[in-house]
């Protein structure tokens, strides 16, 4: 199904319970830190990013989206040895963008979710790359094939994660 333009009145707005709001991002960050040790290929994925997009598109509130993205990103930053804010800024932008787009687009079907996740994965990587190189001075190399493949893999996983999130979100 193609992405359809919908009016603000037509889209459903959801919320998440407080335990889900706290535990799901924490679990995502925990799995992101633990799984690559056992399954090296998992370092391709960015679970916290997928949760950020999932929460943002379901809530459809830019303020909630950007704050969720900022908090998840900062938590992710705290586990790295880089300055805090690299993931924070990237995920703030993604959270804001995903929730803003969620107001205007129908993101309830798998195709739309796949494209949306792929798009925001690339946005996330671009923002991260620019800040890491421009502000922090990290030596980073951009590789389109790598980003494309990672984006596809994340988008595929994102579709399944959004299906799981559908079970815990509540209609307002």
């Amino acid at each position, binding site marked *: 199904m193609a992405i359809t333009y919908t009016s603000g009145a037509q889209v459903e707005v959801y919320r998440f319970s407080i335990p889900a709001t706290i535990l799901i991002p924490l679990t995502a960050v925990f799995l992101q830190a633990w799984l690559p040790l056992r399954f090296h290929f998992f370092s391709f994925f960015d679970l916290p990013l997928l949760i950020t997009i999932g929460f943002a598109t379901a809530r459809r509130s830019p303020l909630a989206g950007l704050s969720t993205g900022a908090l998840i990103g900062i938590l992710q930053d705290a586990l790295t*040895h880089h300055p805090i804010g690299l993931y924070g800024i990237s995920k703030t932008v993604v959270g804001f963008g995903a929730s803003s787009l969620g107001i205007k687009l129908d993101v309830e079907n798998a195709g739309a979710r796949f494209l949306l996740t792929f798009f925001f994965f690339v946005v996330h990587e671009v923002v991260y790359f620019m800040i890491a190189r421009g502000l922090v001075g990290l030596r980073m190399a951009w590789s389109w094939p790598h980003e494309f493949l990672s984006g596809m893999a994340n988008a595929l996983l994102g579709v399944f994660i959004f299906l799981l999130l559908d079970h815990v979100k509540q209609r307002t």
Partner: protein
Amino acid sequence: MDVLGRYRNLIVLVGVLFAQVLGLAVQVRRTSDNEPTRLIRIWAVGAVTPLEKVLVWVQTSTGNVWHNYFYLRGVRAENRNLKQQIERMSLEQVRMSQDADQARRLQALLAFKEQFISQTMAAQVIGSSGSEQSRSVYIDKGENDGILPDMAVITADGIVGKVLHAYPSTSQVLLINDQSSGVGAILEKSRLQGILKGTSAGEVTLEKVMSDENVPAGELVLTSGGDGIFPKGLLVGRVTKVGSGSELFLNIRVRPAADLSRLEEVLVVTKIDERQALPEQTGAARAVDILAGRLPSVPSKPESAEKGDAAGVVAPTTTTAGSDAKLKAVSPPASASSGAPAVRKTAASSPGTGSANSSGTSTNAVKAPPKPVKAVVEPKPQPAVEDSPH
């Protein structure tokens, strides 16, 4: 007011981004080794690592049950192979103890200073940073266990990294393939020194080696000790590719000896001793004595050969010239007639020798190996043992 309400979301976005950029700028400006760990990192690590510890404990316990009770197939054959390997390594150790003794005497003559890894602590890897751009792992030992920043982290295969942050019960280890990592390294044969750096792709390169030098692929890379973190002589990896780099330097790619993507248990070097080799420790020796020890000796007596045969360990009749010379060089005349057991006793009783073999194990008193760990572990073929009956 209407404008503020209309662009409220955008204003908040800009505000949040500005605050984070400002925070980043402050951190980049203040970054130094003496900077205390930020509270937010302690909270994040404190929230995530207990879960990781529990999961690793469950995984290890399950694995132990499987390996100790169910997976016993092939243990008998493995035991036989290991016994044969011990025989071979015992002979190898004899030869190495001779070399070590000789090196120690020469070092004493030259008033050389040696570095010893005198204490290590085994630790379990419980988590990673979760980012491809930050190649670091978390271990289950921290400040409470005596771990401090800048301690070296190694495995039996080679070096792994250094402790970056020590939290109360966990520590963050920066891997050698991270782009902010730097290790003083030296090539084993050519003795060229360089700096081992990680790349953004997670590879390891040896930098600052001049482009007019000849570095063959396959050469071993060792720590040089110049960084003040890793003792000299630990195995780092092997050169895989050499190309012309930027400016005047070669681009040397190194494959780390330790598998950095599958780390489970590591050793943290908690104490390094530096002491000067003294003649009293090794016994005064003249250069002629040292050289005399290396000369071929008189063939052993026939009865010792018979006893050795009877013991069923080393059969002099099947011994090659090379290995025969090695055995005789070690065995003192009084015990030479007792065959291989005497050889093993000599090897075991050599103080401080052969400990390079145990540098990668969980022992607490390990000496920095004079040769790379991997090179020591690989036994050379010993026809004398292989041909002998067991």
